[in-house]
């Protein structure tokens, strides 16, 4: 990465600089709309704050609803990012190069929103700082707090490190934009692409890729602990940790695909994001869908076969009772749709993968919902079981959460390239040779000799 190439890059990767250089009006307006929806969410929250949590549809047995569902869902999506990009980096999957950045941004943006949803759910949000003053490490909620903090820190670092060379590129590119330039100056750490710098950065990225995977796994495991550490029917289950992690990766990939399709469209990233990427991600999604089904199946079969009455009350309320529509829609969205679409090469087109992903996102949200609500609605003791209907305030906050997430994402794309330029370059320069080298190393060394022996025999 020598400075001579930078100039070349500017031209070649012009589309990547466009959102920063000449932001399109349409996108700005769209961001404005998103901000307005977010503000509406904020208004809903103010109402809830003034009126008490009673503004939501929560009630006595069903004391957690949309907010906790969203919390789990968003934290789940956060796995898109960091985990996928780390795993792909570790696996040296070359097709990762245009995807990693997008994935990592999702993680960071979504974590804030997940954490915010926990605040929405508090009866006394102004007392949230008690967690710091009087926190109690025995509570799984504190495990959550620390693991989410760790994950947020790690994934921010993980997002930041590969960003450094690109910031340097931007610094050079936007030398004429006063504050932008200074901003890039500070954050590029004086990157100039010297071999020593590259080595340091590569070590940093590699270490982070290793570290971030267990952290990510732990985060969602710990979130599942919120439920599985209680004694409630269909929560108190050992499978919950891996089940949640699997679901998280599943929904993460789906979110990533949706984001990729959207950005590809609005920022014209077709040269970078090719059908092959979607094809690969589609396969990954298919694998996760099967894995998810396996976990779901094990979870429910264990409950069903044991036939413990309290467990069964929840079970039947999901399978045939009040929550059956949600449950079966979830199965349809999470398993039937993606498997049907993604199993066939011909349907693994961008459109097909997008449909499957959207379906998975909806399905996974429903999954979180059907895990949380039916158990609460059917407590162990015969108790007037509750029905939960979210109020418009909850819907408002949910919409606000989603639009704020998209807003944050677009905001990021206004200041940083959404595809890692230097990694693409690196792929060109180093990757090709390296892959060839690597593939050669996979194969029997006698390949050449074998051929010559064949030749010899023929002669």
């Amino acid at each position, binding site marked *: 990465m020598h*400075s001579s190439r930078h100039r070349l890059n500017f031209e070649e990767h012009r589309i990547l600089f466009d959102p920063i250089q000449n932001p399109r009006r349409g996108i700005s307006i769209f961001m404005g709309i998103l901000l307005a929806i977010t503000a509406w969410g904020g208004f809903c929250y103010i109402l809830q704050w003034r009126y008490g949590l009673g503004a939501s549809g929560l009630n006595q047995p069903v004391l957690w609803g949309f907010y906790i569902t969203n919390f789990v869902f968003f934290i789940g999506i956060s796995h898109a990012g960091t985990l996928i990009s780390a795993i792909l980096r570790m696996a040296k999957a070359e097709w990762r190069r245009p995807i990693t950045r997008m994935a990592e941004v999702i993680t960071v943006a979504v974590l804030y929103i997940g954490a915010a949803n926990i605040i929405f759910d508090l009866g006394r949000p102004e007392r949230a700082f008690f967690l*710091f*003053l*009087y*926190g*109690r*490490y*025995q509570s799984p909620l*504190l*495990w959550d707090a*620390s693991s989410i*903090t*760790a994950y947020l*820190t*790690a994934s921010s*670092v993980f997002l930041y*490190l590969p960003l*450094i060379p690109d910031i340097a590129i931007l610094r*050079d590119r936007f*030398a*004429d*934009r*006063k504050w932008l*330039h*200074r901003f890039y*100056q*500070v*954050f590029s*750490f*004086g*990157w*100039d*692409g*010297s*071999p*020593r*710098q590259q080595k*340091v*950065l590569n*070590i*940093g990225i590699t*270490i*982070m890729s290793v*570290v971030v995977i267990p*952290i990510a796994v732990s985060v969602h495991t710990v979130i599942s602990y919120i439920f599985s550490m209680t004694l409630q029917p269909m929560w108190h289950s050992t499978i919950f940790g891996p089940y949640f992690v699997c679901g998280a990766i599943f929904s993460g990939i789906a979110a990533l695909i949706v984001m990729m399709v959207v950005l590809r469209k609005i920022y014209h990233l077709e040269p970078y994001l090719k059908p092959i990427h979607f094809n690969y991600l589609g396969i990954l999604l298919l694998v996760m869908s099967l894995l998810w089904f396996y976990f779901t199946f094990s979870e429910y079969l264990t409950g069903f076969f044991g036939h413990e009455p309290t467990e069964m009350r929840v079970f039947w309320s999901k399978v045939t009772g009040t929550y059956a529509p949600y449950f079966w829609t979830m199965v349809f969205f999470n398993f039937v749709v993606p498997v049907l679409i993604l199993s066939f090469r011909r349907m693994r087109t961008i459109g097909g993968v997008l449909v499957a992903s959207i379906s998975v996102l909806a399905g996974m949200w429903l999954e979180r919902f059907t895990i949380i609500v039916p158990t609460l609605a059917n407590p162990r003791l015969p108790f007037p079981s509750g029905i939960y209907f979210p109020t418009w305030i909850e819907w408002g906050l949910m919409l606000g959460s989603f639009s704020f997430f998209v807003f944050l994402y677009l905001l990021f794309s206004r200041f940083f390239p959404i595809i890692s330029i230097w990694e693409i370059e690196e792929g060109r320069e180093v990757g090709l040779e390296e892959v060839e080298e690597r593939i050669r190393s996979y194969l029997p060394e006698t390949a050449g000799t074998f051929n010559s022996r064949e030749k010899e025999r023929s002669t």
Partner: protein
Amino acid sequence: MTNQCSWGEGKIFFWQVVVLVTFYVFIFGVVIWILRLIWLSWQLKDVFSGSIGISLVAIPLFLFLLGVYNYVFWGILLSRKRSGQGRKD
């Protein structure tokens, strides 16, 4: 430094250190928080061992993250100096 929009080395370095210090403060804040939790559980005889167990993972992890950041930060800054002014424009 031909560009008049640019800040001087010192100013840039100042802000970079500010960022770094913020990160330090954050990480040590977290560590102090965790220590506070342990202290509370000790005071209140509330599964002290468990808290220690969790913090045995958590504190080193945060310090490790700090270490990685620190390493990259100084690594990049210092190797630039050692390799001289890489940038020509």
